[in-house]
């Protein structure tokens, strides 16, 4: 499978995970001691795609192992507790409005990824002549 499908698949997967963490943050917006959780994957994904070809290690044979950029197999998101949250008197750091705003963004980007994937699949279909009869 080529990089486009793989990277879109990864993006969809990570946005699912992010949605889950935001659901958790909002559900626990009043739980004493709960800390808002964040998920970062953009950097890891950029490293895996390696558009600029700057991160891949130099190798003199194309059969050498895929090193340096890590490839898609070792792609891991970074989940952490938000260090910038404002701590309320019960120790909770969730800001509900911020979470909802980020969730809206996440949804839009998720839909965009799905649309791109559909376009890509459409092109593949076109190439194999599925639309030509």
């Amino acid at each position, binding site marked *: 499978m080529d990089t486009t499908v793989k990277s879109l698949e990864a993006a969809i997967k990570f946005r*699912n995970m992010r949605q889950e963490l935001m659901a958790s943050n909002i*559900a626990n917006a009043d739980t004493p001691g*709960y800390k808002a959780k964040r998920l970062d994957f953009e950097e890891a994904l950029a490293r895996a795609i390696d558009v600029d070809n700057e991160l891949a290690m130099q190798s003199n044979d194309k059969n050498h192992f895929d090193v340096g950029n890590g490839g898609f197999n070792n792609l891991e998101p970074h989940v952490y507790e938000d260090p910038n949250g404002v701590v309320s008197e019960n120790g909770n750091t969730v800001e509900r409005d911020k979470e909802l705003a980020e969730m809206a963004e996440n949804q839009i980007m998720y839909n965009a990824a799905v649309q791109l994937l559909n376009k890509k699949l459409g092109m593949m279909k076109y190439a194999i002549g599925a639309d030509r009869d």
Partner: protein
Amino acid sequence: MDLMTSLRISSSGLEANKKRMGAISSNIANANTTRTVEGGPYRPKEVALGSEPARDSFADILEGEIDAQAQTVHATEVISSNRPPILKYEPNHPDANQEGYVAYPDINVMEEMANMIETGRSYEANIAVMNTTKSMAMKALEIGR
């Protein structure tokens, strides 16, 4: 970790907020109750919230560490608060004590109203998350169409 788990987390949020709302409505309704089954005036109820990892099967528990991060919320217990009752001098009241004082629960209706608004907002936020999750799941069904 998938969208169904997100839905489950949001529904745990709805459930917990419903319990909080139950306690608040009970407190407001009983703001002047001087006689209860346990004896004495009504004691205001408070709901304690706690979180736990959003995993439902043993297989999930064995899965990666990222899964342990998302948390569902639960109303862990309903506490009857120990706030001392307010004594009012009403000698003709059937629940008056020897000196003519009646013990009323110490419920601040303003405080309960503020809690109610907050609980309502919490509930709405969980609904919003649920709707977003649902539309994402529907969008995923369009892949390859």
